[in-house]
């Protein structure tokens, strides 16, 4: 067992959670790891393109400072700068560590790590393992954590879902309540510190590029128990996804990093097949508008441009789709560098992207917002830390491609020692401590019992669909205050109707219905945070765009949005952004950075 019997609980077994688990176990301490799916099946597997780190092996004069500058510039200066800088400085060591763990990164002729270009930078800074980098990195951590499991340091609780934190009378986190997803048994798990690493809340938007576990439910539970939620309104819509009935499948930015070009026919209503449209009759609108970065402008910009082209009726066949064209690149190169994502397109659409341009459209992808944390990944609740997409740090108003994997690992690596440090010094509850666990357990059981017993006429899946449609229509690429207000009213209506749902499954063994009902409740709370945060921010910055307020307004809004839960809805306040290292400047991707620095 651990020195002094310390126990740290980690919720979420994706890249951030596993990174933290590995570090804590390596430090000789015990970890309880909770995940709703076997950790190897976490959403991190969906990351495709790569992981950023400035190693400058291409002789382009890249540096960790340049990476840092690209990150805060891409994030439209809303990120606190010291943690972003620290992440960029750690990034090369993170890539090298994964290299040592055996991740099959693509190589150069000398056998060194190869790097490719990604959006928002002019440098080859992205290490990659084919086009399934997230899968490969997650597996490497999964393997290392399995090793610690064999060594007795890590206990996995897979198919267990966290429902709430256990807080003592001083609002200090003392552990959590989790539910066994087969038996529905609830159990209290005492812990000296809890790290939340549960990823993003994409399912609030119904269909997104996220996996089905990305409900944001555990994070919302923390928020409702007093954790502050920051910059919720900043939701990244990825420019290139494949629309589907059940989800929007990601088409990685690496497709553009390797030379993919976005275009539509110049003539509205041109219905010829793409190969019959001559070069001069194609409109490469990103290259035309942004000569410096071309197809590799940051995601918020590419998304808005594609969106606008389609709104103007210039989409292929007048529909909501544009071409992403790889057909000019040799098939052998494509197979080696992008094989996995081309297979996904082929599998789900039926066309071969090596020979036919892909049809794509933007889709909800990533939350820059999340639990508020300090520079050591600590939330405002003592004993509660957060890492990965579920925390708000690093990315500001827009995340750069291939920065998510590195921020997950960085967050886990910072949270782990911070949790150990806290747990070492925390005063234990003493003999009568068990009361708080019993109380919270009882409270959570009552919620389950009520949901199981009630029989109303509302259908939880229909409510989820309605929420997703309203959020996607009104709280994504283009936002209007009237529509945001209407969306909040809709959310209030859905919350009211939620009280009359019936879970509709008389067999409670391994049911999907009760967990979904719990998620839906939590998603609705978080949806209000996102919507009202957007309503209150009367400017345009990064992924948050309001035609009524088209410019960035540093005077009034260079500040972090903070939402705190109350019975009457979220209460908002703001705190200054730490811009101590790089003074804010206007973003302009039609020019190179050196030119904008001069301007």
């Amino acid at each position: 067992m651990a020195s002094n019997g310390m126990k740290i609980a980690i919720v979420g077994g994706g890249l951030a959670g596993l990174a933290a688990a590995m570090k804590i176990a390596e430090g000789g301490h015990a970890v309880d790891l909770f995940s709703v799916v076997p950790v190897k099946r976490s959403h991190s597997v969906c990351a495709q393109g790569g992981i950023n780190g400035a190693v400058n092996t291409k002789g382009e004069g890249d540096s960790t400072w340049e990476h840092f500058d690209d990150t805060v510039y891409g994030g439209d200066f809303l990120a606190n700068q010291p943690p972003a800088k620290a992440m960029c400085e750690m990034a090369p060591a993170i890539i090298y560590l994964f290299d040592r763990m055996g991740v099959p990164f693509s190589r150069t002729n000398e056998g060194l790590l190869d790097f490719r270009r990604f959006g928002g930078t002019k440098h080859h800074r992205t290490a990659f393992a084919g086009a399934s980098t997230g899968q490969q990195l997650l597996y490497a951590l999964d393997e290392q954590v399995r090793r610690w499991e064999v060594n007795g340091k890590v206990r996995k609780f897979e198919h267990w879902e966290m429902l709430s934190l256990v807080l003592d009378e001083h609002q200090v986190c003392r552990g959590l309540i989790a539910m066994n997803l087969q038996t529905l048994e609830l159990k209290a798990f005492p812990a000296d510190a809890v790290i939340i690493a549960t990823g993003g809340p994409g399912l609030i938007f119904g269909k997104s590029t996220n996996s089905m576990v990305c409900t944001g439910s555990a994070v919302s539970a923390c928020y409702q128990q007093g954790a502050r939620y920051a910059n919720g309104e900043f939701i990244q819509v990825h420019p290139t996804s494949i629309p589907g009935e059940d989800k929007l499948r990601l088409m990685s930015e690496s497709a553009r990093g390797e030379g993919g070009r976005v275009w539509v026919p110049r003539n509205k209503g041109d219905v010829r097949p793409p190969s019959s449209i001559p070069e001069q009759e194609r409109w490469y609108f990103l290259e035309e508008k942004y000569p410096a970065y071309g197809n590799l402008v940051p995601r918020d910009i590419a998304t808005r441009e594609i969106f606008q082209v389609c709104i103007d009726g210039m989409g292929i066949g007048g529909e909501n789709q544009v071409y992403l064209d790889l057909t000019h690149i040799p098939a052998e190169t494509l197979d080696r560098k992008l094989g996995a994502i081309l297979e996904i397109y082929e599998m789900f659409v039926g066309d071969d992207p090596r020979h036919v341009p892909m049809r794509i459209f933007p889709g909800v992808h990533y939350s820059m917002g999340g639990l508020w944390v300090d520079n050591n990944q600590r939330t405002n609740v003592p004993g509660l830390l957060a890492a990965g997409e579920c925390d708000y740090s690093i990315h500001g108003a827009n995340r750069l491609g291939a920065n998510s994997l590195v921020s997950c690992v960085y967050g886990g690596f910072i949270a782990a020692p911070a949790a150990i440090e806290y747990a070492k010094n925390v005063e234990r509850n003493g003999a009568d401590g068990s009361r708080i666990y019993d109380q919270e357990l009882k409270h959570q059981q009552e919620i389950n019992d009520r949901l199981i017993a009630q029989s109303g006429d509302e259908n939880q899946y229909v409510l989820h669909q309605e929420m997703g449609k309203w959020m996607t229509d009104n709280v994504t690429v283009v936002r209007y205050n009237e529509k945001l207000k209407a969306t909040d009213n809709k959310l209030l209506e859905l919350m009211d109707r939620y009280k009359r749902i019936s879970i509709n499954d008389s067999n409670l063994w391994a049911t999907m219905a009760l967990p979904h009902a719990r998620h839906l409740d939590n998603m609705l709370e978080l949806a209000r945070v996102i919507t009202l945060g957007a309503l209150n921010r009367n400017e345009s910055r990064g992924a948050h765009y309001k035609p009524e307020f088209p410019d960035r307004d540093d005077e009034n809004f260079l500040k972090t949005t903070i939402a705190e839960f109350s019975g009457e809805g979220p209460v908002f306040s703001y705190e200054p952004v730490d811009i101590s290292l790089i003074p804010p400047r206007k973003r302009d991707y039609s020019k190179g950075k050196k030119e904008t620095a001069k301007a």
Partner: protein
Amino acid sequence: MPSQPKTVEIHIRRRANPDSPQYWEQFEIPYRPNLNIISCLMEIQKNPVNKAGARTTPPVWQMNCLEQVCGICTMIINGRARQSCSALVDNLDQPIKLEPMAKFPNIRDLVVDRQQMFDHLRRVHAWIELDGTHDLGPGPRMDQEDVQERYAYSRCMTCGCCLEACPQYEGDNYIGPQAIAQVRLFNMHPSGKMTRQERLEGIMQEDGITNCGNAQNCVKACPMGIPLTRAIYEENRETVVHGLLGWLKD
């Protein structure tokens, strides 16, 4: 390709819990283009009424990434084990028959417990023995060709299609292709090689690599196109050499 009907007929092999018997239930949902099996199951879940019009419990299944990369949604579809996210209705004969994988304990409806596959990974030490996670610089240089072979093995998502297809695998009596391929993945790596004995011993026990009957079903069943038979061949060779050396040492 079958002609497009107005509805999709789906037969699901169900089970209420591990102690109950299996039974078939039929469902019918409206046809839309580009449906996959997951969308069909979601439709049934929303309104769980069977084909005869009777209310029933919603069928239970597992899903996550929906991009055929997490492996969780594997089930038997029209007789073949595959991922339900990438199984498109337009390419399937109707009625579509959905069954849980047969080689693993059946929890409820289409859900099975594949923990034994993860246990196998523990046994074969499918990892690199790191000195530590502190910064020790880059790993060993590697040939892109070796990397590509390792990459193929590294795409295994532990879905279990290979075990479902393997005629030898029954009641967890054989460590199986997936674990053997992971031994290959790490024994090929310059650092992994240094602890290759531990991995070889993991596949040399009674239920080890010699149970392979060379049916070669696994490599055909693998949705990721992993060269499983090549891994078995290579590791067979490695274990023979290892066994011989061990015997000489005695």
